[in-house]
């Protein structure tokens, strides 16, 4: 197997993901409307309630709108990661997952390629959102848009890997709504996406601890700092560590010899 083989495989998985995304216009708009609603309604309402003091990486007082944008960017990636894992479960039930897995390339590579394809789609959404946020008046330094790219790649992969791991635990599509409630909302609300950590500490020291340990908080901070041309080393290490952990566990879960299929049977046997 040559490098060209691997490249052709990766490219075709990304192209397919992109095409599928473009064909589902509703999905595109839904993915975009969600953070915009937060920005245009929630942020405006919260502007008065929540004063944000000067905290790194910001150098002046900022409006709440500006604070919340990196959090909403991470939210797009969180929803995308979960959406992808949902589509993995769907593909598993519908059988198109089998087409992917019958490829002669190593399975870990197929999973990583699938993950990268999902992240590519999510990054496209993020930049469209950042463009609209710019029109809205949230203007990070121009170079920040470039500096955020590696951070977005890393956080997108980490959240996607978490989704992938979750998808291996979910037996059927119907069970997925529970996962959304038990994963997405706690991760989003117990994080620094919508309010700074020091504000959470004022409310509840316990919740603060939870939020500080939340990988999603780390993803948000990684993106926030990079967007303002700073590096949050702690967040970088956290996100990288979580990525390795989640991806490793997901690869094990999908391993043909050890994974869940060998024990439970494939889609048809379960039916």
């Amino acid at each position, binding site marked *: 197997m040559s490098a060209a083989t691997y490249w052709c495989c990766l490219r075709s998985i990304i192209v*397919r993901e992109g095409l599928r995304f473009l064909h589902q216009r509703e999905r595109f708009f839904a993915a975009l409307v969600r953070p915009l609603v937060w920005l245009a309604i929630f942020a405006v309402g919260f502007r008065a309630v929540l004063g944000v003091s000067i905290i790194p990486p910001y150098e002046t007082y900022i409006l709440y709108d500006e604070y919340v944008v990196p959090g909403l960017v991470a939210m797009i990636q969180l929803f995308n990661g979960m959406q992808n894992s949902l589509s993995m479960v769907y593909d598993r039930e519908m059988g198109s997952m*089998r087409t992917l*897995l019958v*490829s*002669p390339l190593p399975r870990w590579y197929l999973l990583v390629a699938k993950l990268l394809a999902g992240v590519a789609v999510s990054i496209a959404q993020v930049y469209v959102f950042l463009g609209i946020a710019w029109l809205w008046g949230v203007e990070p330094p121009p170079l920040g848009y470039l500096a955020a790219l590696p951070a977005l790649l890393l956080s997108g992969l980490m959240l996607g890997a978490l989704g992938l791991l979750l998808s291996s635990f979910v037996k059927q599509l119907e069970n997925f709504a529970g996962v959304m409630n038990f994963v997405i909302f706690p991760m989003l609300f117990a994080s620094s996406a919508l309010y700074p950590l020091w504000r959470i500490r004022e409310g509840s020291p316990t919740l603060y601890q939870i939020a500080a340990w939340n990988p999603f908080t780390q993803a948000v901070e990684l993106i926030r700092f990079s967007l303002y041309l700073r590096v949050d080393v702690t967040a970088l290490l956290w996100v990288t560590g979580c990525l390795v952990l989640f991806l490793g566990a997901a690869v094990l879960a999908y391993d043909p010899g050890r994974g869940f299929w060998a024990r439970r*049977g494939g*889609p048809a*046997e379960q039916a």
Partner: protein
Amino acid sequence: MYEAAMPADPPSIPAIHGPPALAVEELSHSFGKRVALDHVSFAVPPGGFTMLLGLNGAGKTTLFSLITRLYSNRTGAIRIFGFDLRRQPTRALERIGVVFQQPTLDLDLTVRQNLRYHGGLHGMAPSDCEARAREELARIGLAERADDKVRALSGGQRRRVEIARALLHRPNLLLLDEPTVGLDTESRRQILGHVRALCREQGLAVLWATHLLDEARDEDSVVILHQGRLRASGSVRAVCAESGSATLPIAFAASTTGERRP
């Protein structure tokens, strides 16, 4: 009708004395306590057409999942042209093409996009993929539908596209799991005829799983699976003779009655 398109390069016909296209040896698999396959052994010769017969729940799908490495066998061995699926999965998998029981085409993508995706998964370069797609689509008589969305095709046409897709990377062994389920008689006849022609003209080894006994012909090899066990295998004549039956349906009925011993 199908156009008589010739492939651009001569088909690779495996040597007659080489290893079997597919060798299943002492294969067992269980899900928890439920035994899905119990010491199953059989072989598909290169260039041969083999029918895998079994009722629903016989273990056909589990067998297909193991052969396509959806999950791995723990006991026994599966060899594709001599390559052990567990030890050399890449060498083994690149030699097989699969048509699954469930339709697996992306309905919203065009036929060409679907084929390209599959070609990419097998590491084919886009230009090679394009040429092969044209060839295979011409063979199934759907060349002019390449840019139509799959959704616009009939059930029979979709199946034919799936066969074209499975052949895109030039496999030597084609596996089909109940490929005619849900199709009308005419589509069934066409697809079966098409695959038989591939086997005859291209030297492709075929394993065709079905519960429809009328799809088997006298010159086929058959493998009869029942409740996870191999009940008979060999040529249709040999299987009939062994059970003292006049026809395959009688032989099949004879070998699939009787429950599994506890």
